[in-house]
C-alpha cells in the first residue's frame, strides 16, 4: 500500500479513537450536581466537602463569567441547561430569567428564617441567598497623599478634580455595574444621562467585570495592579481589605461612599430541565444552611440573608451597612432595565 494512504488511514483511525474516547470516562458512583455561578463566587472547601459527604453527591462549581453573562447563558439554554442549579442572579436580572423559563420553582423550608422583605419572588423560582450594597469605594491613602478630598456623592464624580480617576463596570455584563447605573437613576432622576455624558468627558474607565475593575484598575486593592483611586464595589469591600491585608491594619485603607450605595440581593434557583432536581434542591437548602451562610461574609463579602447568623468580628467592625441605601421599584427596573442599558451603552460607547 502506498505510504501516503497508510498515513492518511492511520490519522483517521487516531482521530476516531480520540473521539470515541471522549465519552464519559468518570464512572463515579455518586451523582454529580453542577452549580453554575459567576466568577466572583467563592465558598470554603471544607464547607462544600461536609455538604458532599452528608448528601453523597459531588458538587461541581462552574463559573460562567459575570452575572449578566451567566444569566444570558441560562436564558439561551433555558430548558436544556448546562448545569443543575444557578447562583448569582440578582434582583435586577431575575425577572427576565423567570420569564424565559430558566428556573423550576422550589420553596425551601429554610426560607422560614429569611427576612420576608428579601423574598422578592413570590413564585419561589429564585431563592435569596445573600445581600449587599453596591457603593463607590475610594483609596483613602491616594487622596490623603494629594491632599484632595475624596468624593462623597455620586454627582461629585464629574468634578474636574476627579478627571480620569474613576473605574466602573459595564452594566450590560456586570451586576455591580448595573446596580451603580441604577443608583445614578435613583439618585439623579432625569439627570442621569447628563451625568454619564459628563462622566465620560471626565475620562471614566469602563471595564466588563468587577474583578477587572477592582483588582485590575483600582489603586486601593491590596495586591492589585491598578492606578485609579475610585471604583464601583461593595459596602463591605473596606472590610475585605482589612481581612486580606498582608500586615495588620488599624484602619481600612479604603472607604465606601455611603451616599452612593444601592441595595442588591443575590438569588439561586433550580434550573428547569435539570436531571438532578433533588440534588439541586439540596444545594439550595445548603446555601441557606448555617455553615454556608456563616461562610458567606468572609468569602464573598456580602451579608447573609438568614436572620440569626453570627457575623465575623471584622465584619461587625468594618462592614458598615448604609442606613438608607438607594433603590428603585422592582417593577420599574424590570420594565425599563433593557432600555436604560441600551441608552447607557449609546452614551458611553456611541
Amino acid at each position, binding site marked *: 500500500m*502506498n505510504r*501516503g*494512504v497508510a*498515513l*492518511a488511514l492511520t*490519522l*483517521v483511525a*487516531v*482521530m*476516531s479513537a*480520540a*473521539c470515541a*474516547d*471522549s465519552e464519559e470516562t468518570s464512572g463515579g458512583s455518586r451523582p454529580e450536581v*453542577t452549580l*453554575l455561578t459567576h*466568577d466572583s463566587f*467563592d465558598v470554603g472547601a471544607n464547607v462544600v466537602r461536609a455538604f458532599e459527604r452528608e448528601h453523597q453527591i459531588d458538587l*461541581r*462549581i*462552574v*463559573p*460562567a*463569567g459575570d452575572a*449578566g*453573562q451567566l444569566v*444570558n*447563558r441560562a*436564558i*439561551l*439554554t433555558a430548558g*436544556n*441547561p*448546562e*448545569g443543575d442549579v444557578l447562583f448569582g442572579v440578582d434582583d435586577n436580572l431575575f425577572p*427576565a430569567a423567570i420569564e424565559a423559563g430558566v428556573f423550576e420553582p422550589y420553596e425551601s423550608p429554610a426560607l422560614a428564617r429569611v427576612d420576608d422583605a428579601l423574598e422578592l419572588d413570590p413564585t419561589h423560582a429564585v431563592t435569596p441567598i445573600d445581600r449587599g450594597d453596591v457603593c463607590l469605594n475610594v483609596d483613602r491613602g491616594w487622596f490623603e497623599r494629594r491632599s484632595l478630598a475624596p468624593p462623597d456623592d455620586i454627582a461629585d464624580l464629574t468634578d474636574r478634580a476627579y478627571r480620569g480617576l474613576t473605574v466602573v463596570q*459595564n452594566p*450590560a*455584563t456586570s451586576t455591580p455595574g448595573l446596580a451603580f447605573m441604577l443608583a445614578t437613576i435613583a439618585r439623579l432622576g432625569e439627570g442621569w444621562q447628563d451625568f454619564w455624558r459628563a462622566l465620560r468627558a471626565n475620562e471614566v474607565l*469602563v*471595564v*466588563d*467585570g468587577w*474583578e*477587572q475593575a477592582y*483588582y*485590575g484598575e483600582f489603586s486601593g486593592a491590596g495586591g*492589585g*495592579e491598578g492606578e485609579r483611586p475610585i471604583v464601583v464595589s461593595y459596602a463591605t469591600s473596606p472590610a475585605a481589605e482589612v481581612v486580606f491585608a498582608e500586615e495588620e491594619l488599624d484602619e481600612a485603607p479604603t472607604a465606601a461612599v455611603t451616599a452612593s450605595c444601592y441595595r442588591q440581593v443575590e438569588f439561586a434557583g433550580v434550573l428547569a430541565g435539570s436531571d438532578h432536581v433533588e440534588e439541586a434542591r439540596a444545594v439550595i437548602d445548603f446555601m441557606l444552611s448555617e455553615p454556608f451562610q456563616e461562610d458567606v461574609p468572609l468569602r464573598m463579602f456580602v451579608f447573609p440573608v438568614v436572620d440569626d447568623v453570627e457575623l465575623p468580628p471584622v465584619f461587625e467592625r468594618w462592614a458598615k451597612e448604609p442606613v438608607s441605601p438607594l433603590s428603585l421599584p422592582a417593577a420599574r427596573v424590570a420594565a425599563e432595565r433593557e432600555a436604560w*442599558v*441600551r441608552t447607557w*451603552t*449609546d452614551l*458611553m*460607547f*456611541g
Partner: protein
Amino acid sequence: MGPHVDRPDVRLRLAAAGRLALVAVPAVFLAVFFVYPLGSIVGSVAEELSPGSVLGDERLRGVIWFTTWQAVVSTSLTLAAGLPAAFLLARFRFPGRSALRVASLVAFVLPTVVVGTAFGGRGPSLAALFAAHVFFNLAVVIRVVGGFWSQLDPAYEDVAAEMGATGARRFTDVLLPLARPAIVGAATLVFLFTFTSFGVALLLAGPSRATIEVEIFRQTSQLLDLPVAAVLTLVQLVIVSALLWITSATESRAGVRQRLVASADAARRPRTSGERAFVAAAAPLLGVALLLPPLRLVWRSVRTPAGITLDRYVGLGDVRAGSALPISPIDAVTTSLRVAAGAASIALVVGVLASWAISRSRQGSWLRALSAVPLGVSAVTVGFGYVVAFDAGPLDLRGSVWLLVAAQSVVAVPFVVRMVEPVLSTSALELTEQAGALGASPLQAARDVLVPVASRAILGAAAFAFAIALGEFGATAFVARLDSPTMPVAIVRLLAQPGAASIGQATAMSVMLLVVTALITVGIDRFRVGTFGRL
C-alpha cells in the same frame, strides 16, 4: 473485472446510485449545519425586526463605520508592508528565503486568539490591532502578489533596465502596474479578513470599540438581543457579497494576460548594489516582523516575578483556586484535541466526498460554491446561526458537544475542498479515465490510481483541518460548553480575569497552540503533502 461487465446497465445504475450517495453526504451535512442555521437567522430577522431600525441606530452605525475604516487602514498597512516583502521573496534568492516564506504562512494559520495574546499585553490599543492584522495577512500579499511576480517573465524588467530605468523605477513603473490585478485580489482578501475580524478585535480593540463580528457576539452573549445580532449578520453578509461581486466583475474586465514563466526562473541573486542593499535591509526586517511576536509570546510565558521559569507550564495541570476555568488548562487542551479530531474527521469525509463529486460531475459546481461559502460568511455567523437554529424540537442540540464538532467542521470544510479538489479535478481525473479506457472498473481505478495520487493532498487536508479546528474561535465562542471550554475559549476567559496568574496561564496555553499550529503548517509545507491553493 467482475461478472457484471457484460451487464453495463446494472453497472451504470450502481455507479449513478453511488455518485448520488457521494453527493448526498456532503450536501445533507452542509444543508443541516450551514444552510439551515443561516436560514434561521434570516427568518428571525423577518419575524422580529427591520434592518432599518438597526441602521437607524447611531451606535450600530458607528460599529459598521469602525469595522470599515479599521479594515481600510489594516489593508493599506498590510499592502505597504506586504508588497516589498512579496517583491523580496519573489524576485531574489538569498539565504533564509524559504524560512521567511514558511514563517509568513505560519503567521496566517495561527489561531486569532494566539495572535491577539501575542500583540496584547499592554491592554487594548488600535496600534496593536493594526499590527496584528498586518502580521496575520502579510502571507496573503506574499502569496498572491508574490506568486504573480515569481512567474512574471524577467524580460519585462530587463527591457526597462536597458532603457535606463533604475531598480526603484523598475519596481514602481513596471512591476507594480503589471501586478495590479493581483494586488487588487490580495487587497480584497485582506479587506475581507480584517473586515470580519473577530478574535483579534475582541482582544485588542477594547470594550468601547467593536467590529460587526464582535458586536454580534456581544449582542448575543451580553445583551441577549438576538434580533439585532441577526440584522448585523445580514448587514455583514450583504457588504461582503457586494464586495466579492464587484471584485469579480472588475477582475474579469481587467483580465490582461502577461507573459509568465516557471517560478524558478524569475528569482535570482541580487546583482546591483541597490538590490543588495534592499535585500540586506528588507530580509532581516521581515524576519523580525514575523518572528518577534511569537518570540515575545514565548518570552512572556516564561518570565515570571520569580525569574525565568517553566512554572506556568507546570501549573497547567491544576485547577487554580479562584480561576475562571472550572477545569485545569490541560483539560481544555484535551477537550480541544478531541473536538478538533472529531471536526477534522467530519470535515475530511465531507470535504473529500464533496471534492470527488465536484470533480466527477458538471452539477458539482453548486456543491463547490456551497462548500466554499463558509469562508466568506465568517465563523461568527455560523456560531450565531447555531444559537438561533438548534434550540428547539428534534434539533435542540444546545449544550451538546456535537454542535461544537459540527461548527468546527463546517469552518474547516472549505479548506479541505480547496486542497483536495484541484488534485482530484486535474491530474487524477485524466488518470482515472485512462484507467477506465484500459478496462478498469471505476472502483479499481479509484483504488489503484486516484487514491495514491490524492492521498498526499488528503493527508495535508486532514492536518490542516485539524489545525483550523484546534484554533477555531469565532463559531466555538457561541457553542462551547461552559464546563468544558476549548483552548481558545479558555485563553480568552483567562485573559478577561485580572492577575498575573491568569494572564501567565493564558500565555502558556497560547504558546502551546502556537507550537502545534506551527508544526502542522511547517510539516505540510516541508513534506509537500498539499498546497494551500492560492494562499
